[in-house]
């Protein structure tokens, strides 16, 4: 069955012509094609896909995204009130300069298709280099069908006042491979929003890859939002590479999706660094959400905190795999992971696997994971104050996730996200 998917994707790659026709990334595509044809397709027998059901995707014939639906484009690319961001918009995998905003002196954003020689050199130099070794069929697929992308460079020492938003929307079926490269110069500070969404009912498939490089003493707030629906398959890979004394904050939201999966790698390569990850993953209906987090502590004197909240309602399936690896030299690491989950229906499924892999002794590591339900005592308490049971449940569920939203410094974005959250909690049938 997986052959259908693999063969059609390989065939697609062999005749692939990028939307702007440029050839200078063809070596990357060839490499991707080779890796993809050598890669095993997802199955339950493969540890990293153990809890996923890719059957629906794997029996598809992969084709490129067709012409976009302009009416949906306008709706999906509406600005987030109060956010005031530099915007870079992709529609069905194609960069849209006319929907994107100009940048200022401190931040340069370039579409791969319009890169000059110097920028092409930077892109070639960085692209794919941060993704760790290992079997990553969807990264290989994205490489093999590499189309346009955005290179975002923040000058050393710059302190960006406006967040930078990369918005990728889907209005039509087929595969898209939005790509983002971020280079935060030494001592610079920036907020980057990576946001993926899809019109309801559109059977779109994304293989999105982002690579973020933090220079020494840089600070990046990385918002990675994938708002799914029942028809959208979004598979993302995001790798942050931290230089010395850098600070990385990630806010990850995965809601819904036929499959909505993120492989998130935080590669701590510079000592004195701090990493904080917050995440929420929510599934209802027959959705599958999955966060695979991997924090690599390769150097000493770093700390990381991971706070994740998951929820599976109706017939939804939620997966969290959080791995903290402390390499031999990473003495004095302090890594703490907390993962709490709510299982709201008896048809839903929740799988959590917090892992610690430790090769250094002078470290403090802990993880905690819970799976449970809304506290009946809390529900009763709220009902004695006049709230209906349904309202009490919705408020409690919301409170459970709210910790992640409250952690976001960008309040307009958090407010924007409360709408999909409310929709998620409303009218659940958990019988």
């Amino acid at each position, binding site marked *: 069955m997986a052959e259908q998917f693999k063969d059609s994707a390989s065939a697609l790659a062999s005749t692939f012509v990028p939307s702007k026709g440029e050839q200078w990334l063809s070596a990357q595509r060839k490499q991707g094609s080779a890796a993809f044809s050598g890669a095993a397709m997802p199955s339950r027998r493969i540890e990293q896909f153990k*809890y996923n059901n890719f059957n629906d995707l794997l029996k598809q014939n992969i084709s490129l995204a067709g012409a976009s639906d302009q009416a949906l484009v306008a709706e999906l690319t509406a600005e987030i009130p109060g956010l005031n961001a530099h915007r870079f918009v992709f529609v069905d995998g194609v960069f849209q300069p006319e929907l994107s905003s100009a940048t200022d002196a401190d931040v340069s954003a370039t579409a791969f298709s319009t890169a000059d020689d110097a920028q092409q050199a930077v892109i070639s130099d960085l692209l794919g280099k941060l993704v760790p070794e290992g079997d990553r069929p969807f990264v290989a697929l994205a490489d093999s069908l590499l189309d346009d992308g955005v290179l975002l460079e923040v000058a050393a020492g710059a302190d960006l006042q406006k967040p930078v938003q990369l918005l990728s929307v889907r209005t039509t079926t087929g595969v898209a491979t939005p790509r983002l490269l971020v280079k935060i110069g030494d001592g610079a500070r920036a907020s980057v929003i990576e946001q993926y969404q899809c019109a309801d009912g559109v059977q779109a498939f994304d293989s999105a890859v982002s690579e973020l490089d933090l220079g020494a003493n840089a600070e990046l707030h990385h918002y990675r939002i994938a708002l799914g629906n029942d028809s959208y398959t979004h598979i993302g890979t995001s790798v942050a590479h931290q230089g010395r004394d850098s600070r990385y904050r990630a806010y990850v939201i995965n809601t819904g999706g036929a499959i909505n999966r993120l492989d998130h790698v935080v590669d701590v390569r510079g000592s004195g660094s701090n990493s904080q990850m917050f995440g929420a993953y929510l599934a209802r209906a027959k959705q599958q959400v999955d966060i695979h987090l991997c924090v690599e502590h390769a150097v000493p004197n770093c700390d990381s905190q991971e706070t994740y909240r998951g929820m599976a309602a109706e017939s939804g399936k939620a997966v969290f795999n959080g791995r903290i690896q402390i390499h*031999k030299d990473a*003495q004095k690491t302090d890594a703490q992971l907390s993962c709490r*989950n709510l*299982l*709201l*229906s*008896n048809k*839903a*499924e*929740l*799988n*959590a*696997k*917090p*892992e*610690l*892999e*430790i*090769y*250094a*002794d*002078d*470290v*403090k*590591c*802990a*993880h*905690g*994971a*819970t*799976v*449970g*339900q809304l506290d009946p005592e809390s529900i009763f308490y709220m009902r004695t104050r006049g709230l209906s049971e349904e309202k009490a449940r919705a408020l409690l569920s919301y409170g459970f996730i709210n910790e992640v939203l409250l952690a976001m410094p960008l309040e307009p974005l958090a407010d924007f996200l409360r709408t999909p959250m409310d929709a998620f909690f409303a009218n659940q049938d*958990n019988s």
Partner: protein
Amino acid sequence: MSEHTDLIEAELASEYEAGFVTDIESESLPPGLDEDTVRAISARKKEPQWLLDWRLEAFAAWKTMEEPEWAHVDYQKVDFQALSYYSAPKSQADGPKSLDEVDPELIRTYEKLGIPLHEQKMLAGVVAVDVVFDSVSIHTTFKDTLAKAGVIFSSISEAVQDHPEIIKKYLGSVVPARDNFYACLNSAVFSDGSFVFIPKGVTCPMELSTYFRINAMNTGQFERTLIIAEEGASVSYLEGCTAPMRDENQLHAAVVELVALDDAKIKYSTVQNWYPGDAEGKGGVYNFVTKRGICKGDNSHISWTQVETGSAVTWKYPSVILRGDNSVGEFYSVALTRGRQQADTGTKMIHLGKNTKSTIIAKGISAANSENVYRGLVRIAPTAEGARNYTQCDSLLIGDTCGAHTFPYIENKHNSSVIEHEATTSKVSDEQLFLCQQRGIDTEKAVSMIVNGFCKDVFKELPMEFAVEAGKLLEISLEGSVG
């Protein structure tokens, strides 16, 4: 029955005749594994046809299976054709003739554990006649007491002859022959092991232990143990010896099956201290064991406690299938690795029944160049209304060349269940050591005190004399671990 067996034996005789090295002192099969080996083992043990068929079926399945690979275990693969699969108890001629011939390192360990001289001889394989007599008398005394209570405690081989209906009913009922590569191999070639049957309503009057069953000691390579507690029965079983059993067998692939019916309780404790190999990782036992219990009846209770300090490579996950409503599964474990030892151990708690409860307390201590892995699964099936699990797994690292890893799998399919998992990693801190030293305690003693404190939650689950010995065992194992 015996006529039947004789017939089979006669029929088979011609086939395996060549397979035997006839020796008055000891009878053993030459190295190698094929269907004839399986037939030969079964025939030597005068087993009924159904058991031979069962073994052969397992063997056929095993041939189609692949040896598993584990991400965190690295060892030289076993050459299954180089092993001998049957050996009658060693005669005196094989073993060391006096304690002078025994590895002095081993003698030193015995002394530290405070084991009496005649027991030392016995444990080292210097099977002195008086000790045999001694143990036979012990054996007989307790056998009478047990018989009065209606408890059956014998070797599996005896039970196959004496209680075939029970064996037939339960053998492979918890760990099916095809369960995994090593369990499958065990099913084909298992040598011997213990059989315990506690009838309805009986509380076993004493702790049962393989310690008493010295005669079965040398049959450990493919041990098979089966414990059944009928309705309302209870038993506490201690496996292995409190002393470090010196065993030169390279591969141990044992299978242990526990069955608890309504309101029954089985407590199974293990202290394992097989040869871990030398500091460079040469030699040492591969301990690939499948242990599983089923809480078959309502309100039943199975508890595993293990203290693992030996073996070069350990792969074992004593598990509980919680099928009866309100049943309880527990797993308490201390795993200490040093030298180049590798331990991949943990448990599986499979919740099927309503209001089932499981508790997992796992403590891993890694020193030197060892690798220590906790791997566990908690699965709540859609039928397990009101299920609860609590897991606490802690790792302690001594030195910066070892590894400590935690891989818990949590799978939940019932929305009235609650699962809590916590894991921590720490080291013996310089402050703790300094405090002890400042109070006049030397470093080695201090480390052993701290480690014992770390393991307290597990040791308290062991029968008292076992707990004391387990503490001593850790102390000995930790010697030289701290610079």
